């Protein structure tokens, strides 16, 4: 009895405080939570933080504009979770975001975490927009609410394969991957594309994501007189491979897709960096219509420039916010159709999704390292229509 009385008083007090606090906050703005999941610790921490920054900038802008959804003024809030790049952590983090009642999730960063997490979001009906997961399987699962604002590996592989044979004139190609989900998927697509363009994959070798010794593989490649070595792996492996190619006297061209181009590459590879080709998703920052402005904002708030995926994260966030405003609702079921029908120009280019959730007319850029810096050779786009299966 006493406890009940106490409880009632407590409840009333809490209500009173809550009401006054609410009104004292001076905006009856509804808070809409935007979830972010990515590696904030671990090997990809740098990238994950970059993505978080992109989301954060978009949210700041939206709040500055004092948007209204329907007639209610809204404020957006970032709910950030760290998945450390690990699939298991990714699923538990996904559960946390769902529990927190987010309206959309921007994430994850790696395909390996995005795919298992997508199940959880799908079950909860929350749309997921990934700024960087490129494995085709993400959008091939039949979930109607997963999107990405980069091209997938099938597309990029196709661009690369065509470029290798048609533009670089390489007839005998060696394809090596690092046996991770990312590298292998990409390499397989490149093999398909090279063969389709009538090139010859004479060497198909594998390593793992921790190796730094590629002498055996490169010796085989040298013996088979390849014109170009394609390596799907990250920069810390591409650099030793470039060096070892030079040391072994293998004069073939070297093309890598991973996280190049970046500024550290020359430090890592030394003089072997000269002439290396690399692809990147989307367009170079300076070619993006509002890229420079975006980077300025990023530097102003966080002190660092763009690493790689922050512009994409920014676009992903804005796609979600725009859809919510257009549909006049932050409820996933209601704004999903508006999201699917998105069509506008973001920082990274035109944002529009196909029926699987992939970006339409996605661009990719090929660079070459010359004279101490990365030069844009060409921006490819538009060949992704036949995105059948994996």
């Amino acid at each position, binding site marked *: 009895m006493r406890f009940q009385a106490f409880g009632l008083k407590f409840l009333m007090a809490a209500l009173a405080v809550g009401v006054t606090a609410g009104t004292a906050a001076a905006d009856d703005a509804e808070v809409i939570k935007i979830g972010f999941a990515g590696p904030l610790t671990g090997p990809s*921490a740098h990238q994950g933080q970059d993505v978080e920054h992109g989301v954060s900038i978009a949210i700041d802008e939206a709040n500055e504009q004092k948007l209204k959804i329907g007639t209610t003024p809204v404020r957006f809030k970032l709910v950030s979770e760290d998945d*450390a790049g*690990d*699939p298991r952590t990714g699923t538990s983090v996904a*559960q*946390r975001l769902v*529990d927190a009642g987010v309206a959309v999730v921007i994430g994850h960063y790696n395909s390996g975490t995005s*795919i298992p997490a997508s199940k959880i979001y799908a079950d909860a009906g929350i749309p997921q927009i990934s700024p960087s997961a490129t494995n085709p399987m993400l959008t091939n699962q039949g979930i109607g609410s997963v999107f990405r604002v980069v091209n997938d590996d099938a597309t990029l592989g196709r661009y690369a394969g065509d470029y290798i044979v048609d533009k670089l004139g390489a007839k005998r190609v060696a394809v090596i991957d690092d046996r991770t989900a990312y590298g292998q998927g990409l390499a397989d697509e490149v093999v398909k594309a090279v063969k389709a363009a009538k090139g010859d994959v004479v060497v198909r070798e594998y390593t*793992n994501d921790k190796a730094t010794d590629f002498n055996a593989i490169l010796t085989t490649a040298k013996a088979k007189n390849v014109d170009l070595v394609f390596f799907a792996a990250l920069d810390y492996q591409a650099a030793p491979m470039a060096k070892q190619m030079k040391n072994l006297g293998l004069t073939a061209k070297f093309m890598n897709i991973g996280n190049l181009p970046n500024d550290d590459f020359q430090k890592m590879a030394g003089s072997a960096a000269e002439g290396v080709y690399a692809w990147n998703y989307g367009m170079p920052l300076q070619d993006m219509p509002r890229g420079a402005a975006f980077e300025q904002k990023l530097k102003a708030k966080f002190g660092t420039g763009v690493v790689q995926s922050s512009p994409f994260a920014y676009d992903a966030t804005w796609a979600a916010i725009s859809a919510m405003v257009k549909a006049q609702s932050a409820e996933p079921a209601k704004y999903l159709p508006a999201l699917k029908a998105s069509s506008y120009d973001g920082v990274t280019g035109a944002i529009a999704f196909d029926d699987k959730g992939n970006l339409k007319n996605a661009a990719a850029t090929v660079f070459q390292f010359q004279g101490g810096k990365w030069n844009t050779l060409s921006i490819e786009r538009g060949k992704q229509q036949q995105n059948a299966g994996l």
Partner: protein
Amino acid sequence: MNNTYLKFGLLILAFIALPFIVNAVPYLGPSWVRILGFAMLYVLLALGLNIVIGYAGLLDMGYIGFYAVGAYLYALLSSPHLSMAGLAAGVMNWPIWLIIPMAAALAGLCGVLLGAPVLKLRGDYLAIVTLGFGEIIRIFMNNLDQPVNVTNGPQGISSIAPIHIDAGAWSYAAGEAPHALFSLHSKWSLFGLQVTPVINYYLFFLLIVIFAIVMSKRLENSRIGRAWMALREDEVAAEAMGLNKRNIKLLAFGMGATFGGVSGSLFASYQGFVSPESFTLMESIMVLAMVVLGGMGSIRGVVLGALVLSVMPELFRDLVNWVQPVIMDNVTFISRDVLRNILDASTLRMLAFGIALVLVMRFRPEGLWPSGRRRAELHDKDDDPEAKTLGSSASAEASKAGRSTSTVHFHRGEAKA
């Protein structure tokens, strides 16, 4: 007797109530129930490894390989992968009551296959070779997508069906969905309590864990259990007593492995996705640490070790994530980058884990909650005056021969086995 059953019963009730409590606590919530589910899986793993290391004294550092085998078996038999790879007609949908025993059997077979070549090896060699086997299994899983796509390589197998029971066929065409009579992936209410899928899984795992504990206890007190312990203490004497060394060792590997296989198949259904990334050497070492830190050979110790080591990292991570911004904001004389390196949650977590291993092994090698016998074994020489006066050579001899020092009196004459 009644008292023990009563205590055990109360404990089980507490564990059953746990997820509901955790679910309701605002700070914790369903994601922590999920963590509890994983903790149950680890308890199962630890119990299995306890048979190999704790009872039989065989140092297996590749135990996670059995976990992988069980997981992939379930994945292959409950997902569209085989049909996508062209190896089966439709989406596989084998019944759970068949898959779990199959996983146990397959893992057990692998255990025996692992044990066969290493029978003659001594402790340290055994460790390295089993470690090698664990890695071999992982790398095979990572690469068996050519020439026939069995495991889908590094991309893993996804869209794995949750645990369910249905009356349907064992495979169905893609696009159809089977009608599940009962699935762990459903919500229902019990006496007014909302039971979510995560809680369903946890309770199911708890059931299996209880079964495993009972089985472990029975094994411990059985003839086989005693044979294992005899083998552990002194191989030569055991053989002299008429025990078939080879069979006993194989049985240890096999039985231990079955627990791993079952745990793996449950894991696959829980996560919905398996990839070789989940079966690394570090996982093997984690499970090993659970057994050793908890107390080798002691069921309660092992369960405690598993619970602690699977929940601690999460707590730790939350702690670091909470502390990190505070430190980053207030400590300005150290550069951002350096601080970020130091305050990285996963690094700190592993560092704490390593320190825990070292401290426990140095000062309390029998584990946190060992059987009394084991504690006596490992600390016996602390009270033994003779061991002290002869320098350490006598007990050094005895332990060099791999025997416990509690029997130093009987073995002093024999320097070699």
